[in-house]
């Protein structure tokens, strides 16, 4: 369960929200507060006012895997292996256990062949995959992805989606500009001007967005 109460922070204004779905897509125009909401939920930012509870706990007490909007800026280490190994190493896992987690996480997102590569030699999309592998390396309880798909082609985005579906995380909070992807989520939050304007199943939310470009292209052509 994700519970938000009286949240006021920068552009964000969310009086009350409780979501019990697993795969939650956050959509809305650029500048509507999606990234800010996700960074509060991930514990990166403390809200000025109000509370956020994930699984009944504050974000700082939850094991969270986070992938930012600019993987270029958030990758810390120069070798892909070390980047993915950072969450288990920071949690003092043993070397054999870390190695096992790194190889499994790389395998899931399909970058096993890049483990020895330099992060600087990766393409934009491969950096997003490395960041995703690192986020999933230490069995997160909640996975938070901030437009991780915006640098990915269709096949890679589908692989990421599969990895996300298969992860053991209780909640996946995913912000995306692909409405066709958002249409496959369990729950959708549509944000505008810092507020959650619509929330509900994809069917409920997109029926209110039918006259806008936020309506999924596949629904537009099939229905």
């Amino acid at each position, binding site marked *: 369960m994700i519970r938000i109460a009286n949240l006021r922070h920068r552009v964000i204004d969310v009086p009350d929200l409780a979501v019990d779905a697993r795969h939650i897509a956050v959509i809305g125009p650029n500048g509507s507060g999606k990234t800010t909401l996700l960074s509060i939920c991930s514990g990166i930012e403390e809200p000025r006012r109000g509370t956020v509870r994930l699984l009944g706990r504050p974000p700082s007490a939850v094991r969270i895997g986070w992938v930012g909007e600019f993987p270029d800026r958030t990758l810390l280490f120069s070798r892909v292996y070390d980047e993915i190994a950072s969450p288990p190493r920071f949690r003092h896992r043993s070397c054999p256990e870390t190695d096992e987690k790194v190889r499994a996480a790389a395998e899931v997102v399909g970058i096993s062949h890049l483990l020895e590569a330099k992060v600087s030699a990766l393409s934009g999309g491969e950096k997003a995959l490395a960041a995703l592998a690192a986020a999933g390396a230490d069995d997160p309880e909640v996975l938070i992805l901030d437009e991780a798909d915006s640098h990915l082609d*269709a096949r890679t985005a589908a692989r990421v989606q599969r990895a996300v579906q298969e992860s053991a995380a209780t909640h996946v909070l995913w912000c995306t500009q*692909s409405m066709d992807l958002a249409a496959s989520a369990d729950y959708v939050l549509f944000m505008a001007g810092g507020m959650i304007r619509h929330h509900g199943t994809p069917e409920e939310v997109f029926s209110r967005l039918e006259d806008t470009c936020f309506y999924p292209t596949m629904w537009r052509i099939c229905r």
Partner: protein
Amino acid sequence: MRVDIEDITLSRGRITLRGSGTFGEGIHLVSGPVGSGKSTFGLLLAEIIHPTGGSVQRHGISSTLLMLQFPEYHITCPTIAEEVISWGLDPDDLLVEADLAGRADDDPFHLSRGELKRLILACTVARNPDLLMLDEPFSSLDCAAKQRACRVIEGRREGITIIFSHERAILPQVDAIWEMEGGTLKALGSVPRAIPRWRHAPPYLTYALELGARPENIRLQDAREAVCRIRG
């Protein structure tokens, strides 16, 4: 005006680029998976890097611009107005064009990613180069901003425009489609004939083709019109 590529090869890191073909005047879309060499190919056409084999020959091209995937790498000045001036452009006109009027004295890094993309796209298009290359011009934009970017790109009446993109929902009208896979560039030819051969086509286009429709271009509205024609 054209760019001829003859049997180029270039090894860069894990990728070996290969390809032949001619980019004539009009709008070209180069699609392909992540890491297939799209950005490297842009660097090559911009003559920032050079092939180890084969040749890239330009005919009648006197100016070239490449818009990078990450717009922050273009920034050289502390204010938005100075940034526009550094492109040799008038900030008053351009900021209206980019829908950023009133932001002249702001730090470019205080713009959102979408706003920054809009600024750099407006600058590159306003320079009106003979050869314009746009590396992922739609990534991280919302759908309204993507539609605006499409209109800006379609508004280029002359010269060669090459878009490197994996966008799957909002695309401009284009004249030709190319695909890159594993570093190899393949010309699919001109639109609409190239559309059925396009393996990286967006899902709505694939859906229309599977119904037996023949879209005239690659936009969602082209696919919808084609589907309407066969459904009557």
